[in-house]
């Protein structure tokens, strides 16, 4: 290391040694966690840490962009899609393709070894450092902008086109062709009236049986006949099996709904 060029401060060293292991751990989380949401969280951590390292490495602009683009946009997109696909859909980690796990691990390790040894054996020139390299220079964002809109302006424009194209592409890809006529308020109302004989309720559903004991959103209301009204509990709670029986009704007046029926 050439101290004349670049001196890495102790603070940075500490920062690195704190963040780097955490980053590796979080990245490994990508491999081992079961739920995709957790994996996304791990990745968010890696990316934010990356932003920190960028800033530490004299790239404040990139650090900010990293936070804005990656954690702010890309990862949000991931989460949206995750929610679309199903947040709680957990991924089984058992391997279905024969030998894939070992092949994958072998390749991963191999990559690490090859890359690591390349880095280890490579002879780097003395580090210069950005300020050292540009003594009378301006601050990082301005310098970067000069290069970006000077030497690379055509590439910049091309990338702009690419982004637009990608946006349009995403629109086209996710566009669903309308197979049925568009529903307006009128037709929805008509359809509901028409479905009346099938047991559709026109009026608002009954609200859950709110009892002072808890916030009680999970407790079904009681009908005029003393029966519990299952629809009064949110569907999500019902599916999760988190609804509770209405406690205050005397046992002889209650028709207890078995667990299985409630789930259905």
């Amino acid at each position: 290391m050439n101290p004349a060029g670049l001196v890495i401060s102790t603070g940075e060293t500490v920062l690195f040694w704190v963040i780097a292991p955490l980053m590796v751990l979080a990245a490994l989380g990508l491999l081992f966690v079961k739920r995709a949401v957790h994996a996304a969280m791990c990745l968010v951590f890696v990316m934010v840490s990356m932003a920190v390292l960028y800033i530490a490495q004299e790239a404040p602009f990139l650090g900010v962009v990293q936070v804005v683009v990656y954690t702010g946009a890309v990862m949000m997109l991931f989460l949206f899609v995750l929610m679309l696909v199903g947040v709680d859909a957990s991924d089984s980690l058992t391997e279905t393709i024969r030998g894939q796990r070992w092949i994958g691990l072998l390749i991963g390790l191999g990559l690490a070894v090859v890359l690591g040894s390349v880095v280890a054996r490579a002879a780097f020139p003395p580090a210069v450092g950005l300020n050292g390299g540009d003594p009378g220079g301006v601050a990082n964002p301005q310098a970067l902008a000069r290069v970006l809109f000077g030497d690379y302006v055509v590439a910049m424009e091309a990338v702009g086109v690419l982004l637009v194209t990608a946006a349009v592409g995403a629109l086209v890809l996710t566009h669903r062709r309308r197979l049925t006529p568009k529903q307006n308020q009128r037709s929805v109302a008509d359809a509901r009236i028409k479905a009346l004989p099938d047991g559709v309720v026109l009026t608002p559903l009954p609200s859950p049986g709110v009892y002072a004991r808890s916030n009680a959103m999970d407790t079904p209301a009681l009908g005029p006949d003393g029966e519990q009204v299952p629809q009064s509990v949110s569907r999500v709670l019902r599916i999760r099996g988190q609804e509770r029986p209405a406690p205050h009704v005397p046992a002889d007046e209650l028709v207890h709904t078995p667990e299985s029926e409630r789930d259905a």
Partner: protein
Amino acid sequence: MDITNYVVLAAALFAIGATTVLLRRNAIVVFMGVELMLNATNLAFVTFARLHGDLTGQVLAFFVMVVAAAEVVVGLAIIVTIFRTRRSASVDDVNLLKG
């Protein structure tokens, strides 16, 4: 501390990302692996920019980010479309190319 530690970290992250691509079956997680690999290269770029005192590395990292953003948009759109038709986000279920 040696500046090459950053490069080693980048290499490690890249390898982990690649392994993720190879081992995970959830398309979204696979995609995250790809993002991790891209980030790892970006770290290397930034590090080398600093090492050489040349901002071009940072510019390149910037472009990688932009392209990655575009790629994510399209990639996720594809995943969503596939999920819509097949009700699955597992990459193993999409094997129509089987010979």
